[in-house]
């Protein structure tokens, strides 16, 4: 399963959020960030606040921000829909937290770990793929790689740093 290449058109999808409502991602409607994350991974949790700060900071600038949990609940019970909903109810998410139960969206994007960050241009092209910033353990970095990519996209510039190595726990695939 290969990850999407920079410059490649990304696939759209429709997934349920924790309230049962379907959320649709249509590439080409606006710039967007799709983050594969989960409840149980220490890297995802360490970067979580930074990522949701980005979601809040860029919401007013027309960026759609979607966080997707693709982990198999049988291998990772902590990633159940109920556990996801509890975190949303607790106010931990700045936007929808989507459940990719079939894992199809993760496969379509070539996501491998949590968190795995994909930035999509308003044309529907993948323009950044990788980690939020250099160090999960340094909050002061403020997801600077993700912010820089978004700033480039919103300014109409080519993304200067288009690819970094995503860091995190492996997505828990169905056995």
């Amino acid at each position, binding site marked *: 399963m290969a990850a999407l290449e920079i410059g490649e058109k990304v696939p759209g999808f429709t997934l349920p959020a924790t309230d049962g409502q379907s959320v649709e991602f249509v590439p080409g409607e606006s710039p967007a960030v799709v983050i594969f994350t989960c409840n149980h991974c220490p*890297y995802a949790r360490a970067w979580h606040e930074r990522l949701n700060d980005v979601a809040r900071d860029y919401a007013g600038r027309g960026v759609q921000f979607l966080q997707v949990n693709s982990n198999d609940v049988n291998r*990772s019970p902590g990633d159940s829909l109920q556990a996801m909903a509890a975190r949303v109810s607790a106010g931990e998410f700045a936007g929808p937290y989507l459940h990719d139960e079939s894992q199809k969206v993760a496969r379509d994007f070539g996501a491998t770990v949590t968190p795995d960050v994909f930035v999509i241009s308003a044309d529907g092209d993948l323009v950044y793929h990788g980690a939020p910033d250099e160090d999960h353990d340094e909050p002061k970095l403020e997801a600077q790689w993700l912010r820089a990519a978004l700033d480039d996209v919103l300014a109409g510039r080519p993304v200067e740093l288009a690819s970094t190595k995503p860091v995190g726990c492996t997505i828990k695939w169905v056995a």
Partner: protein
Amino acid sequence: MLGSVLAELGHEPGLVKYVWVEDDATALEQQFVGSPTFRVNGADLFPADPREQYGLSCRMYIRRNGRPSPLPDVEDLRAALGTALLPKELEPQPN
């Protein structure tokens, strides 16, 4: 981190045995709740929630500053090892 903490406590890094858990069967056999797990004489230095399922997973530790981490806080590790391991001078000596 483990090696340096052991050295600080006066123990040899060679004391450490690494066990690779690469499949679900081994995880079940080892009662393994995630990586890394630190055991001394079979006892987990950081006992997991009993509801945790055995399997191939990452463990989430909470550092002393409250941040989630893939590794324990070095101070917690030092304290746990210090409690679990006898000081070198108190180890039984050969006759």
